[in-house]
């Protein structure tokens, strides 16, 4: 049975308005599902509900607004259903754009910060170690828990905004210390350093780990190089697509895993699964559905491109031009793109023939014309979802593979690193 605080009861009685009442009702019913015995406070939220999915999500948002909903903790917004200022250049139906913008407006009216990004950890709203937060968006959840050491359960759409409106969540899951211990041990076995240094390694590793771990907390060992934040972002997004990974530990890399004993809270792993080159090659093959050289578009930026990725890309593109038959698209946030502009990276990308889509991504807005049939990407998340959601074929490659392919106008991949 759940114990409610005096405050919870007053919200439930409608003393804080009808929207807060509905939100806490949903939170309390969910506490029952989770088996929580109490609610707890959160200090911040990241709202995935802002994503326009159709009439129901729009009705939910506008209903909350009509009932006077206001967030009571700083709340960032995930990607939107449309690039607010750039959608007209693509195949987005005007009716979709109008409704997606209404949904955006509803969440801003509730007091959320219009960050419009699936990588809120790249902004000034990044949480800190140990902070209790309620985040939606699977890749962001994995990053906040694992890389930063903030504490969030995996918040689904519609619940994240209820948490933000009430500041209360069921005290369960990754909010609680005991649920943050590692469960599976996944040692890397004979993975060459050169591969570990390559950006193309991390999405593949994440895809494999997600399938093995499903919803368990995996602990990885055997890294000889220190992955960058962009590598960890790509890894977590992949593991949260093929699996349900909301928290992982890498010994010596992530903050709750200085040692194996610390990561497992002094207990034994439930299972040990070796990460071999053979398994990695299999995972890499699964991320591609197309064969041959034909290519319609290279798309980068899921999760949203960071400033350092813009800079790295600009170095690779300097003085080069993409082939006319292939499009080259990057999806990112307003904040990162503005910084990329200031550092000059954006200009280089435009000279190359690249385009930028802000606020959203190819999976969350119907922007791609039917002529785009074969995508190439360095994102396991794009690779995982595009075939089903966009009915396109996809080829996974490293950033360099993607750039070279765009220049040559055909799929080219460096197999060398994978065949050792």
């Amino acid at each position, binding site marked *: 049975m759940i114990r409610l605080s005096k405050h919870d009861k007053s919200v439930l009685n409608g003393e804080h308005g009808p929207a807060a009442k509905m939100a806490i009702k949903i939170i309390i019913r969910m506490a029952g599902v989770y088996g929580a015995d109490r609610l707890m406070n959160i200090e911040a939220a990241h709202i995935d509900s802002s994503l326009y*999915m*159709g009439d129901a999500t729009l009705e939910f948002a506008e209903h909350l607004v009509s009932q006077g909903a206001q967030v009571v903790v700083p709340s960032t917004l995930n990607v939107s259903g449309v690039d607010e200022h750039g959608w007209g250049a693509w195949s987005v139906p005007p009716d979709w754009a109008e409704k997606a913008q209404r949904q955006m407006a509803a969440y801003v009216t509730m007091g959320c910060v219009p960050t419009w990004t699936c990588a809120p950890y790249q902004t000034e709203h990044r949480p800190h170690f140990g902070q209790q937060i309620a985040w939606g968006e699977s890749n962001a959840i994995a990053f906040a828990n694992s890389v930063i050491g903030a504490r969030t359960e995996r918040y689904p759409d*519609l619940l994240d905004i209820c948490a933000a409106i009430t500041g209360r969540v069921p005290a369960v899951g990754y909010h609680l210390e005991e649920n943050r211990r590692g469960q599976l041990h996944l040692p890397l076995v004979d993975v060459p350093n050169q591969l570990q240094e390559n950006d193309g390694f991390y999405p593949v590793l994440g895809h494999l780990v997600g399938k093995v771990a499903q919803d368990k907390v995996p602990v990885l060992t055997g890294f000889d190089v220190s992955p960058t934040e962009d590598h960890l972002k790509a890894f977590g997004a992949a593991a949260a697509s093929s699996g349900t990974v909301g928290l992982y530990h890498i010994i010596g890399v992530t903050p709750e895993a200085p040692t194996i004993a610390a990561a497992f809270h002094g207990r034994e792993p439930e299972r040990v699964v070796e990460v071999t080159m053979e398994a990695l090659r299999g995972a890499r093959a699964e991320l591609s559905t197309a064969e041959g050289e034909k290519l319609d578009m290279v798309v980068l930026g899921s999760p949203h491109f960071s400033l350092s990725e813009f800079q790295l890309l600009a170095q690779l593109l300097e003085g080069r031009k993409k082939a006319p038959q292939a499009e080259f698209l990057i999806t990112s946030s307003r904040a990162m793109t503005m910084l990329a502009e200031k550092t000059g990276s954006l200009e280089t990308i435009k000279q190359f023939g690249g385009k930028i889509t802000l606020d959203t991504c190819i999976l969350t807005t119907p922007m791609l014309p039917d002529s785009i049939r074969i995508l190439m990407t360095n994102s396991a998340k794009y690779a995982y979802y595009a075939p*089903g959601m966009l009915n396109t074929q996809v080829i996974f490659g490293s950033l360099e593979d993607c750039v070279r392919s765009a220049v040559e106008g055909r799929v080219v991949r460096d197999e060398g690193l994978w065949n050792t």
Partner: protein
Amino acid sequence: MEHIIQATVVVAGSAKGELLISNEPLSFWGGYDQESGEIIDRRHPLSGQNAAGKILGVPFSRGSSTTTAVLLEAVRAGKAPAAIITTRKDAFFALASIVADEMYDAPIPIVVVPKVQFERLKSGDWLELDEDGRIVVEGKQALRK
């Protein structure tokens, strides 16, 4: 051949229909077409099958936190499963059903059955679920009579 399973109720409700079941978890975002009920995750064993109005059995939801929104959209569009059976409490399915109740008075029954019994169920079985989580299972043969 008929048998009975006692399920644990997550969101109560009654339903009957043909079962569509897989041991593979499913993300509704990118995996379920809210306008038709088709399973569209091309890597999922149920890819191409239609779950609208059927009872869907998957061990739990996987991946994206947008699964709830897709399921809510499917409810509104009349293309949701009639009920969902999992092997353990799935908060994402439960939330979509609870919000469907709050918004549209149309919750989807969600129940948990023990793994061994889940694994004995087959696509095509005819199921009748009541408010208390009692499931009457009729095998495929029953459908052909």
